[in-house]
């Protein structure tokens, strides 16, 4: 028997790629929702809105302090037991929910740090010409914070794509789940997981390339 069955691997690629849209779809949905949630949490933290600030800190502490897998199990298996309206929650929804909450905890801190990191003189200059707080946030602070936050946020997106593989533990047949099924049918575990690893790797490399282009564009204003 050969070390690697190349033919099997080549046949497996198109089969597994059929599940790529679900994997990327869950990650994209999770990322969009996490961006909105984390931006909101970051603003609450920056402005120290009374009450909400403490709640946000607790939220961040919990979702950063517990494993994603535990959170997914909690949503999928745990919550329906105590909240009857969740009995119909499916694995995909639970995964997107888990990814959103888990990653927004991390992202909120990056976004907050990026906003706080914009030099105070930028705010003062904007105030000095008569801009309102909203105007200076929108036109001066947030664009500069975005540039700082983008590399970190892209890293979280990459992490999130890989984290979608945990959905297979909730019975979702995404990229990882499909591989598991194929492998247990063919008994070619090694080949199967090499293939799926390469698929994840290729997606992440593609994103990293896109990230570099994005950063270059953002850094245009800062070249000497």
């Amino acid at each position, binding site marked *: 028997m050969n070390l690697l069955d190349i033919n099997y691997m080549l046949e497996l690629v198109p089969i597994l790629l059929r599940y790529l849209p679900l994997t990327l779809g869950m990650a994209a949905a999770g990322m969009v929702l996490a961006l909105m949630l984390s931006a909101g949490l970051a603003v609450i933290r920056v402005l120290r809105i009374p009450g909400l600030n403490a709640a946000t800190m607790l939220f961040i502490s919990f979702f950063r302090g517990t494993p994603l897998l535990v959170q997914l199990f909690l949503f999928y298996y745990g919550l329906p037991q105590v909240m009857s309206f969740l009995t119909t929650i499916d694995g995909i929804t639970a995964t997107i929910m888990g990814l959103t909450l888990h990653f927004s905890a991390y992202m909120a801190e990056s976004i907050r740090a990026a906003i706080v990191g914009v030099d105070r003189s930028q705010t003062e*200059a904007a105030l000095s010409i008569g801009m309102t707080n909203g105007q200076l946030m929108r036109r001066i602070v947030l*664009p500069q914070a975005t540039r700082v936050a983008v590399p970190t946020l892209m890293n979280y997106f990459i992490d999130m794509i890989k984290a979608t593989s945990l959905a297979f533990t909730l019975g979702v047949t995404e990229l990882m789940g499909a591989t598991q099924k194929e492998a247990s049918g063919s008994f070619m575990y090694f080949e199967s997981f090499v293939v799926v690893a390469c698929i994840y790797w290729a997606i992440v490399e593609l994103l990293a390339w896109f990230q570099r282009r994005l950063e270059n564009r953002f850094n245009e204003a*800062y070249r000497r």
Partner: protein
Amino acid sequence: MIRVEKLVKRFGDSVILDGIDLEIAQGEIIVVIGPSGTGKSTLLRCLNFLERPDSGRLKLGDLDLDVAAVNAKDMLAARRRTAFVFQNYALFANKTALENIAEGLIVVNRWPKKKAYARALEILERIGLASKANAYPASLSGGQQQRVGIGRAMAAKADIILFDEPTSSLDPEWVEEVLGLMKQLAAERQTMLVVTHEMSFARDVADRVIFMEGGRIVEQGPPSQLFNAPRDPRTQNFLRKVLATSSSGSISANNDALSVSE
């Protein structure tokens, strides 16, 4: 006309401005000198409401404010009448030279973009930086950045431009081009209040020099009088220290005058 009455600013327990009274005529060029930590910058920042004064009155044209009771709208109005030039330039890092100057016109004055950019380009031509219109601050020299900073202040068409040590962070090679632009504005009778350690600028350009110490105006007068015949011992003491450490020719002439007056 601008009038400041009994302006007081405290940080915690320390009194930074201890009842400043000041009247500035239109077209007047005033230079404020004094030891560091005596409230010169705070005075400027209070006029622009970058710091909130604790008490006093501030009259800017037809805007008459009890500073302890200003609301957000008054504060915005006051800021539009007082343009600010920062020690560290503080150009918007994400905007080009042209956009830096046009920003206030577009956002605050709500001009159409085209009109604002046309006006900004005119200003860039006046400050000799039209060729740098599309350059970002990071690619400009310190002197060029500060000239754009002054251009941004000019665009506001404010009642007064407040200069907070505009040349203090500059490498010596860029100081002259910034002072040159300020002299040009002074020649056009742009009302300005300048905090600076450039004594030769004060002597050559100012209509009035104000010496501040301990949050108060100790002495003021035309530069010829303040530099050549300072009355208050604190002014004399300060000038002796400042002028002794300076090696510039125009200053040593001053130094002679000072020693003669003693």
